[in-house]
């Protein structure tokens, strides 16, 4: 927190030259986000960049779907499941949506209990979130297997426009990867919470920094973002 340098600029003779000078100048203290830590600010900026990645996927999906002259496969039929002899449209996707929303709910409460320093409840809710996330990925694997067996490939499918497969695998695959990474980090952080790392300010094995319960909120931001992206995929890819 070298705030004084902002108000009373040091004579230039005190500034270091060369690469040391470059790092010193760029790391001089100038905060734009006053009441959030840099950890949270950086997570938000990462999520912003991730927004653009998913936007590009969804925009390219829109572009191929609008420009193809062959009809687009009807998602309600493609993703229907046979339950008790009747075809229920989109049922698996609906279940996956509810699971992801539930995981967001448990995560939000984990953050809350984290700030109350309730170690056990935080860990339990994070574990529940991870379990929901894992079951989501499992269902996605089931869905992929089913579609691949039915002949969907990135270059074609039995029902219509060839671009359907590539858009589907790219968008849901990238989202599933995000969920998987989230589950891994949830499990790692659950272990830290349970062990009391954030109460004893134990140093992390990788960054050697002292953590606190804000980490749970930052992980929560990532997890809610994954849910947020699914809201858009559900609306624009599955329902459109």
């Amino acid at each position: 927190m070298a705030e004084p340098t902002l108000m009373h600029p040091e004579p230039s003779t005190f500034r270091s030259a060369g690469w040391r000078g470059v790092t010193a100048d760029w790391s001089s203290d100038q905060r734009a986000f006053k009441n959030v830590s840099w950890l949270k600010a950086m997570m938000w900026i990462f999520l912003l960049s991730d927004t653009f990645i998913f936007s590009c996927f969804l925009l390219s999906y829109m572009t191929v779907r609008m420009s193809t002259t062959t009809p687009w496969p009807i998602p309600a039929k493609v993703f229907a499941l046979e339950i008790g002899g009747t075809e229920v449209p989109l049922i698996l996707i609906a279940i996956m949506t509810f699971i992801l929303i539930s995981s967001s709910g448990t995560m939000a409460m984990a953050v809350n209990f984290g700030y109350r320093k309730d170690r056990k409840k935080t860990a339990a809710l994070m574990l529940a979130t991870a379990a929901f996330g894992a079951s989501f990925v499992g269902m996605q694997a089931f869905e992929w297997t089913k579609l691949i067996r039915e002949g969907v490939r990135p270059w074609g499918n039995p029902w219509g426009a060839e671009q359907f497969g590539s858009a589907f695998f790219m968008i849901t695959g990238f989202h599933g990867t995000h969920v998987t990474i989230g589950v891994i980090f949830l499990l790692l952080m659950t272990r830290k919470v349970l062990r009391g790392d954030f109460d004893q300010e134990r140093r992390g094995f990788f960054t050697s920094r002292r953590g606190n319960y804000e980490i749970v909120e930052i992980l929560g931001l990532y997890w809610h973002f994954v849910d947020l992206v699914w809201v858009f995929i559900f609306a624009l890819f599955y329902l459109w």
Partner: protein
Amino acid sequence: MAHMTADTPTTATAAGHAEGQQHPIKIYLLVWGWLFILSTCSYLVDYFGLEGYLRWFLILLFMMVKAGLIVAVFMHMAWERLALVYAILVPPVAVLVFMMIMVYESNYTFFTRVVLAMSGS
């Protein structure tokens, strides 16, 4: 408020951290419930096979409300300072511009494909 800034930046951040984002559990449960209801609604749009502009309008409406609830409450954006809110929420507007460009582009591609199909056969 101006005299409050006399605090050194260090204590100000420490206080900010201590507060964290503490909100009553009730509001999370409420949003959770709403997300369930809205998801059910958007599923029902498909289930009842609504078509045309009504379908698209409803899908987009439920999508935006759900996204807004998640960002505002679950991600605590509603309680952050405007500097952060604008820094994160304004840039994605560029995506809408990109979308309009690509709509224009894909209409043209579609047009050339139709023309080619008619003249080529």
